[in-house]
């Protein structure tokens, strides 16, 4: 038997026991606090484990990374904005920024557009559940597995030999030459192909949320419009779409963040070669392959800066929700 099994059992039973024990302990501790101040102390004791984890694994490391981005390859050697100057002055590195822009624009377009169309279409058929599951299921698997699945889609053999990739097989059947999908960097097409893999995974996410919002629209309203002679297109354009717009905005925010953080697909499918690097993959490369934590930290901070506006949107939307709670 695996000796680690004992450790695992101890962890799975021990850690919850410790956490539950901690909460019971807070009441014991609070007995030593004057009664009128207990309600004041109690919430902080309940929040303490969460605040520790958030502080140690998110807040403090982020601050340290920001500081590190102003130091060179050797820690402690302050270099001002040199790492940022390196990034914005190196065309090879800037490709990562361009690719992230492409990811944001096209992933949002593909997933939200596709998700909206599918949500509207499946609403009209009886096999809705099955159709939705088919579109939705790639979200459950790892991006690594998705990368493997799509490597066989994009597979390329030199012209003349039999094509083993699905897409090149289809192209061959209609008499078109094989394309080396992941190596065509004209117009950054290979990045678009990588985005398609991610869209295959995430369209289901957009579809499920938009479909739930669609079900919330009153059928009487739509029927009334139809009775008044509106075509299906006009019903969609002037009633359904405006009512879905807030949800479209919510979904888009999530997808934009996903696009900015894109890493796994690139790492598994091209490892950033052929001009497909994104900021996240370049950051890993600079830090852990080239060993330059200065460059790596600057890239991480650039990623954070790109995400902050979206975070702002998230927060203001959250506050608006709270206001109507």
């Amino acid at each position, binding site marked *: 038997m695996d000796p680690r099994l004992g450790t695992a059992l101890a962890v799975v039973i021990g850690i919850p026991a410790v956490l539950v024990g901690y909460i019971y302990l807070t009441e014991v501790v609070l007995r030593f606090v004057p009664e009128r101040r207990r*309600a004041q102390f109690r919430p902080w004791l309940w*929040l303490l484990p969460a605040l520790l984890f958030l502080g140690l*694994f998110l807040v403090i490391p982020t601050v340290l990374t920001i500081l590190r981005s102003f130091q060179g390859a050797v820690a402690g050697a302050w270099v001002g904005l040199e790492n940022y100057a390196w990034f914005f002055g190196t065309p090879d590195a800037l490709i990562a920024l361009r690719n992230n822009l492409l990811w944001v624009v096209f992933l949002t377009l593909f997933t939200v557009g596709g998700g909206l169309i*599918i949500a509207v279409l499946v609403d009209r058929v009886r096999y809705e559940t099955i159709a939705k599951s*088919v*579109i939705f299921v790639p979200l*459950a*698997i790892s991006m690594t597995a998705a990368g493997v699945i799509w490597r066989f889609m994009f597979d390329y053999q030199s012209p003349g030999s*039999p094509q083993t990739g699905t897409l090149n097989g289809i192209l061959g059947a209609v008499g078109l030459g094989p394309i080396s999908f992941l190596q065509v960097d004209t117009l950054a097409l290979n990045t678009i192909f990588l985005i398609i893999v991610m869209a295959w995974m995430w369209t289901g996410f957009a579809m499920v949320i938009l479909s739930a919002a669609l079900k*919330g629209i009153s059928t009487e309203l739509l029927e009334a419009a139809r009775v008044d002679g509106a075509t299906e297109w006009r019903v969609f354009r002037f009633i359904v779409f405006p009512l879905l717009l807030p949800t479209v905005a919510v979904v888009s925010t999530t997808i934009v963040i996903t696009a900015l953080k894109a890493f796994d697909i690139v790492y598994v499918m091209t490892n950033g070669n052929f001009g497909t690097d994104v900021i996240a993959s370049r950051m890993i490369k600079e830090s852990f392959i080239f060993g330059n934590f200065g460059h790596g930290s600057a890239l991480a901070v650039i990623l954070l800066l790109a995400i902050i506006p979206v975070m702002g949107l998230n927060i203001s939307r959250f506050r608006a929700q709270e206001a109507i709670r």
Partner: protein
Amino acid sequence: MTASSTAAQLPAERVASGRLPRFFSRFGVHLVLAVLMIIWLLPTIGLLVNSLRSSSDIASSGWWTALFPPKGLTLDSYAKVLAETDIASGFINSLFITIPATIIPIFVAAFAAYAFSWMNFPGRNLLFVAIVGLLVVPLQTTFIPILQTFGQLGFAGEFLTVWLAHTGYGLPFAIYLLRNFMGSLPKEVFESAYIDGASPVTAFFRLALPMTVPAIAALAIFQFLFVWNDLLVALIYLGAVRPENLPMTVQIANLVNSQGGGWELLGPAAFISMALPLVVFFALQRYFVRGITGGAVKG
């Protein structure tokens, strides 16, 4: 205004909604959906068929040639991937990593969510907004300092590192989801419990926690899938130091990037890694969908 008068004013649209075009538009819906479903299934079917073929077949012809009639299908690659690679131990590693990394954040988040929902303290809303903000912090901004700290403390590469890191990374979403659910529980329940002399600890374990089970189920599925499918965190914290601790995702990624042949192993390896998420997904799809929509659309 009646239907007929509108339709008379808009003859073009009348044609569009006539009986025959409606049949075609219904047919069109089915056709588009059928095509989309095929597009969505095709990549996976291709890999599934290839995972059942020999390496020479995979290299010499497309997977579709093995279908009609079925020929040369074998489970050899599955046997080979289990015998010759570390995928089997990777599966165990993935379990070792995922189960604690799912359980710990649920408990920690439930305490915090209860405090945010049912206790009053100054700065409560501001603190919660800050946690909502942390939802989007890219993990990349945390790797270098944490990795160095783990190294200094001497447990670099241990499972403990990923358990703790995944707990920290998963908490903002976990707190957000649970607090949204706990906060919408009926106030009267807690008020009458307090009047009856229940302590907050009793109210939490006897009332809040049982009533929050649907949200906890959704959260557990999310965190499980997130950790099981994670590549980046394991790659950074385990990858360089303790290769024998690597989960399946990193092992498969290494298999892809090694390029030293072994293409016939990729398919079986990918399907072994997908098995558990797919079971979880199909068994608990309802909770999964509820978690997604609950986080995004309210009411």
